[in-house]
């Protein structure tokens, strides 16, 4: 595929040239953290980050999304559905997060059900990634079949080679997008060598820290194993791990109505919440925090594999970095492996 380069100082101008034609989503800095947000100007883009606190799944699967609005007047029932999606660019995301899109795709693009809300946004989007030169200690992408420069889910990959980013077209869509764009120049052989070196050194810095092989076969037999009693003990039962996770995708659908008008809204759900799978009667198949932690692990490493032949984890480390009590998923998996 084709390579180009873009100078770091030209990034803001490049982004500005997109705004208007595209909705642009990118990392921004706020306080001490980087967040993934829709931006209104190229100057907001913040690329000197390890990873954003929230994941880019929000670009396709927002936390709260109106599916349609309804109202009743003298003429009868009126439905309003959201209009066609505008073209989008998801810019500067990490390769691990881009991989999460290829895990979410089969969920929302099933044989039986096509989720138009997700799929329309996906189809209208160019995904531009930024390779990880210095993966943090909480990252374990190489343990889950990923790589700091993985191209899975990307149209274009940028690699930081000092003053410039080397841009590699991954898909035809990406190649066409880069063609004639403001700020992009031809890559020299030297640029290519620098890119190779950066990739090598980052890959060498990571050692696989979690054993995934065999988990999906082992987990179903451990449903009633006492290990869950100790694994979950310090868990607070909050929604951080699932809400920040790029692959978690459980949702609920609610009506927010007042008198004769209302909206049907899809919202994120979390298996860590008490209300998750609670039935109208009050009965709950997962009544305790232990059952819900087990659900999270089972879903990612067993059920999802059965359904989609992939592990629903990209090793981004958000759940490790942000867990208030340092309940480290690598430790949980090590515990399970040790049985």
């Amino acid at each position, binding site marked *: 595929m084709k390579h180009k380069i873009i100078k770091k100082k030209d990034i803001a101008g490049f982004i500005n040239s997109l705004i208007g034609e595209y909705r642009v989503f990118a990392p921004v800095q*706020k*306080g*001490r*953290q980087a*967040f993934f947000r829709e931006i209104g100007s190229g100057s907001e883009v913040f690329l*000197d980050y*390890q990873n954003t*606190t*929230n994941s880019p799944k929000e670009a396709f699967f927002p*936390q*709260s999304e109106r599916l349609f609005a309804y109202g009743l007047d003298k003429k009868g029932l009126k439905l309003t559905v959201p209009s066609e999606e505008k073209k989008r660019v998801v810019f500067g995301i990490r390769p691990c997060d881009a991989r999460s899109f290829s895990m979410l795709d089969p969920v929302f693009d099933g044989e039986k059900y096509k989720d138009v809300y997700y799929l329309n946004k996906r189809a209208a989007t160019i995904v531009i990634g930024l390779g990880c030169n*210095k*993966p*943090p*200690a*909480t990252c374990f992408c190489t343990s889950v079949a990923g790589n700091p420069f993985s191209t899975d889910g990307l149209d274009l990959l940028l690699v930081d080679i000092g003053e410039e980013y080397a841009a590699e077209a991954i898909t035809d869509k990406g190649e066409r997008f880069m063609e004639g764009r403001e700020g992009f120049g031809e890559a020299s052989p030297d640029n290519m060598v620098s890119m190779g070196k950066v990739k090598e050194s980052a890959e060498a810095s990571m050692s696989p820290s979690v054993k995934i092989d065999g988990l999906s076969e082992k987990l179903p037999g451990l449903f009633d194993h006492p290990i869950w009693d*100790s694994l979950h*003990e*310090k868990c*607070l*039962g*909050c*929604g*951080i791990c699932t*809400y*920040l996770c790029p692959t978690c995708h459980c949702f*609920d659908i*609610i009506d*927010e109505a007042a008198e004769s008008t209302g909206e049907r*809204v899809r*919202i994120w759900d*979390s298996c860590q*919440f*008490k*209300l998750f799978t609670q039935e109208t009667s009050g009965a709950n198949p997962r009544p305790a925090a232990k059952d819900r932690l087990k659900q999270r692990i089972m879903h990612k490493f067993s059920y999802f594999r059965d359904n989609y032949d992939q592990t629903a984890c990209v090793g981004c480390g958000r759940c*490790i*970095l*942000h867990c*208030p*009590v*340092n*309940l*480290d998923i*690598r*430790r949980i998996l090590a515990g399970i492996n040790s049985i």
Partner: protein
Amino acid sequence: MQDFSKVPDDIREAAKKLLEEGKVDLVIGFEAGTVPLRSTPCFIRNKDDVKRLTWNAFCENNLARYLRKRPEGKIGIVAKGCDVRALVELIKEKQVPREKMVIIGVPCRGMIDRKRAEREVEGLQIREAVETEDRIILKGDGFEKALNKDEFLHQSCKVCSHPNPAMYDIPIGEPVKEEAPKGSSEVAEFESKPAAERWQYLSDEISRCIRCYACRDACPFCYCEECFVDSSQPQWIGKSINASDTMIFHLVRAFHMAGRCVDCGACQRACPMGIDIRKFLKKLDSDVKELYGYEAGMSLEELAPLTTFKEDDPQGFMIEP
């Protein structure tokens, strides 16, 4: 100079003795975390496991949160100043009987705000954080940076005036010096701003809230059987991300904390989005102190002001709001 190096061993010794003599079934304390600058809650049932216990400037969680509704008989709990204050309130609120706990009280010199410390070496990979008497040394590939502990404490620790356990069964180490924070209080500073500016600040802060409820779940006092945000009949607030609903959650939680909050900072530390949650709580703390002369968690005898009535309770705020 006080010697703090023996604290972890003293904790292990105390825990071992309690388990060995059958005085407790479980000890809740801290063990080394899986990443630099972190310790993590741990649950010890076997005397041979007490070696896992540790104590350092990274023991930031409030362990009182784990004590309610436990199936075990007696429980040993490693508790710093704010953990003990939370225990005192939980006892008064009849959530955990005093007899159920054996408090291993540890004087606290403040906990490190890891997010701020990490920012000091932005872009570099911290492999190890070493604690000395007054510093934290961050080490990584080809770099080493020393930080003054005092400058990198959590805000709640910086302004803490009760670092020593107010109640304990087994004291560890020597008490640390207690002093009221210098300078104007955080509340006075915030109050001096125009109302519109204050509202803007709080609105901006909660605009990042993702309603993960980690603040609630980390808090020792958020123990309602059914939190009002989880109720569906009646449904008190909307489930979608709406700024008014999110604000209602934070305000109701704050009001529910009046006269109970011990300013351990657990809510703020838990927040993944870096929201200044303490701002919602501190004014209520200071009002309760000013109106009723009450500080939460300081004594078992003193009744919590909002659960009782005294004839000389101030009425002014009701008559002349």
